[in-house]
């Protein structure tokens, strides 16, 4: 497997003149912008990793007088805090990425769906948005951005639940198809992109696709911002080139006693020490929206798992059976096994249930509960039982 090693990159927070990039993008055709993003191989930075260029291409191909760019700033994955930093430090680039995306797909409206807990930065963002609007009007953009606040539900980070929430409804995922590119917010063609994705796209326009592709691996182009937390002497935000192994990551960020790394938050995968070297952080190995939680040997993986399951049991929207009831069963099941009220072999039934949830749940939330469950129980079975 390709291994690029651990390299720090300065792209997202790089000082640039947003106006220049926006002027450059304004002179490009929709197809040119999309081609640039396609060539860059950029994949969504929220975690799911859908190719951004394709998303824009599909949305651009839809015939509709009303289209939307939605910026998903409902950063709710446990252990992720990079979008907060990006919005605090380079909101112009977020707004700029939206304007460029709007130009690419033919949308005049952008909506930022901001995590409820980030309300404290709304005033500053609104002020910055005002001057941003003025600037793009001067260039000639016909584009407007609005902010909508979330209210703290994790599920509203799921794209279609997010649309429902924007529309003032209960945040529940929709049936797909139709996909957002065809029918998104207000049932209009919508490209919904993560905060970081939009900034990265803007930087690709700035530096060109070629510059971007020199970073990362074939499956995971470029760099991304990591939120490092847990048992580490250096918690915080770090922009790193994609394509390093967990071992290389731990060598830099670990405290010398790292037992496991949870890559991708509660919905991601737990990598145990014995697999550090062979596991690449990226779409070819363990994908992540940025969350990197390190655990040292003082931590009980049962407590870690219990915490995640507790979280999912509460944060499931509750509409579909596998997720609503499945999460409760996984939680209650490991509790019973721990207490000795259920046989250790009951974990085998729960592993099968986790498999069913992965393929039968309605949305990404329910489908990814099994990731953490299977990787923690699979690698730390003794800690769950004893």
């Amino acid at each position, binding site marked *: 497997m390709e291994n690029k090693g651990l390299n720090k990159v300065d792209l997202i927070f790089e000082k640039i003149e947003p106006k220049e990039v926006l002027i450059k993008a304004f002179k490009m055709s929709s197809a040119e912008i999309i081609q640039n993003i396609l060539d860059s191989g950029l994949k969504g930075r929220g975690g799911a990793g859908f190719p951004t260029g394709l998303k824009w291409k599909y949305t651009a191909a839809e015939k509709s007088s009303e289209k939307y760019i939605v910026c998903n700033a409902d950063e709710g994955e446990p252990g992720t805090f990079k979008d907060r930093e990006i919005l605090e430090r380079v909101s112009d680039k977020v707004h700029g990425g939206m304007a460029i995306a709007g130009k690419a797909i033919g949308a005049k409206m952008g909506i930022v769906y901001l995590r409820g807990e980030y309300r404290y930065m709304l005033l500053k963002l609104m002020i910055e948005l005002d001057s941003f609007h003025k600037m793009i009007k001067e260039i000639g953009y016909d584009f407007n951005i609005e902010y909508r606040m979330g209210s703290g539900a994790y599920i509203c980070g799921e794209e279609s639940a997010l649309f429902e929430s924007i529309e003032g409804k209960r945040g529940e995922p929709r049936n797909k198809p139709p996909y957002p590119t065809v029918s998104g917010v207000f049932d209009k063609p919508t490209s919904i992109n993560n905060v970081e994705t939009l900034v990265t796209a803007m930087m690709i326009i700035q530096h060109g696709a070629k510059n971007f592709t020199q970073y990362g691996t074939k499956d995971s182009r470029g760099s991304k911002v990591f939120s490092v937390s847990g048992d580490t002497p250096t918690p915080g935000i770090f922009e790193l080139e994609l394509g390093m192994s967990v071992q290389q990551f731990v060598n830099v960020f670990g405290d010398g006693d790292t037992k496991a790394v949870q890559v991708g938050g509660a919905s991601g995968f737990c990598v145990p020490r014995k697999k550090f070297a062979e596991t690449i952080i990226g779409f070819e190995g363990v994908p992540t929206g940025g969350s990197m939680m390190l655990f040292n040997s003082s931590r009980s993986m049962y407590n870690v798992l219990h915490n995640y399951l507790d979280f999912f049991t509460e944060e499931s929207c*509750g509409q579909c059976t596998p997720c609503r009831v499945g999460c409760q*069963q996984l939680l209650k099941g490991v509790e019973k096994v721990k207490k000795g009220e259920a046989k250790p072999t009951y974990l085998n039934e729960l592993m099968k249930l986790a498999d069913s949830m992965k*393929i*039968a749940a309605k949305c990404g939330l329910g489908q990814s509960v099994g990731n953490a469950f299977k990787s923690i129980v699979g690698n730390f079975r003794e800690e769950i039982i004893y």
Partner: protein
Amino acid sequence: MINLLINDQKVSVQAGTTVLAAAKKLKINIPTLCNHDDLCVAGNCRVCIVEQKGARTLIASCATPASEGMDIHTNTLKVRNARKHIVELLLSEHRADCTKCYKNQNCELQSLANEFAFGDHIFLDLVEDHKYNIDRSSPSFIKDDSKCIRCQRCVRTCSELQYISAIAVSNKGAQMKISSFNNRPMSHVVCTNCGQCVNRCPTGALVEKTYIDQVWDAIYDPDKHVVVQTAPAVRVALGEDLGYDPGERVTGKMVNALRQLGFSSVLDTDFTADLTIMEEGTELLVRLKKALVDGDKKVSLPMFTSCSPGWIKFIEHKYPEFLPNLSTCKSPQQMFGVLAKTYYAKKRNIDPSKIVSVSIMPCTAKKFEADRPEMRASGFKDVDFVLTTRELAVMIKQAGLDFRNLEEAKYDSIMGDSTGAGVIFGATGGVMEAALRTAYEIVTGREVPFGNLNITPVRGMDGVKEATVKIEGCVDAWKFLEGAELKVAIAHGLVNANKIMKLVREGKAPYHFIEIMACPGGCIGGGGQPIPTNMQIRKNRMKAIYAEDEHMVLRKSHENPEVIAIYKEFLEKPNSHKSHELLHTHYIERDNY
């Protein structure tokens, strides 16, 4: 057309067809639970998952449109395992006291359990972990959250079909549940008691409140004289709960069965349906005269029918400013109730305090209506107990009657005679048709100008129907109506009622008379009718109603000999002082939250 493969069989369907429907075309059965023909797609129970070649996950066949080249398999190991898990999960959060449950053997979850989850439980019982509420506050139905599997059929029914949303989803995750506004008891929210949710609940989470035991007690009480009335729509649906196909008429057998159950007198709501036509038809003509001849600007037109207690509660909550437009007539059930304890008691020489009045209704809202304080004009509670069609079927089974082999019997007298006009009250448009048959004849002295008295424009399943009847050749007393065009409209299902009421509120409704029934299809689709329900079942029942009408000798309300007699002996004339005292009422404004 879209071509796809399901279990290696080719099928072509129109764009937009779901995988589930495509499979149905091939006679491949995919189990479902949250899916219902009358409602929008939910895709949340996941029971109908199937495998699509090349897809990362299984897909919900009810929610996924067929697309070109799809390769679907409905019975792979992956599908079977996941489906079994899903049914087991549902069972783990469902209080499965099946043998004690009112829905035992008519429960969709139970059927699925029989197919997929027999034997040991895989998962832990979750029911004990939750504090479940059993809401018995409504006089019409019981909402038992411990049996709820969150399919949201009730939620969709209440919003899509009835425009009420008395119940909605609240909370999330493990705490997600179906609740009323602010968790108030169902008796204290905007709920019309229509029971459409009860009709569509796949489990026993929503069931009618039964009064079967109270009725048995009354029957076996030697001191009591128990009269029973049967609503028009019951006779075309009761059979479904007793092994007949939808749309079979069992009127005669039902009358015999009721007699065998021990009711003192088996009478017919159709009689008071005819009476309603006399009272309501007269009321309409009086209002028209006041408006057209006397120039009275305060007359409330259009006039609305008032037979459907679900609709009454709807207008009380949602459009109270139009309460004066309601006909003041009580519903046939309540007219019957009050007359049973006055006219009937007098004629049969029975102490009215000894009379127990029972009604068999296709309706759950009628239970609420019978409890209304307005419904005590006889000096007693006019109707003591209301049973649904389903409850009657239960009583017949309890009594061990061999229903299929019962002789056909006739209703008792008095208040047992009826006409075809009374029968068609059971279908949407029926009250209108019955009213027109009588009113037109009063005004012109001739029968309505429709072949065989069948006023087809007001019939059928369209949500909103309109018709215009030109009045020509009036008799002297009604000369002022000469040449007038009587404009009428009909709506069934409260979402359609709301459409008409919006027009009325905006002043855009050109109608004189509007019939509204709360339930889709009218009473034949009522909340107390046999489960399941769908459009085809309702159409079959509707056909049966009109067949019943065609088979009657008398088909106009004013020709009912017992109606003629009651006016002669007791009420004097329609809208008389006595009529107003007993048969008319006024309703009240209620909060819209």
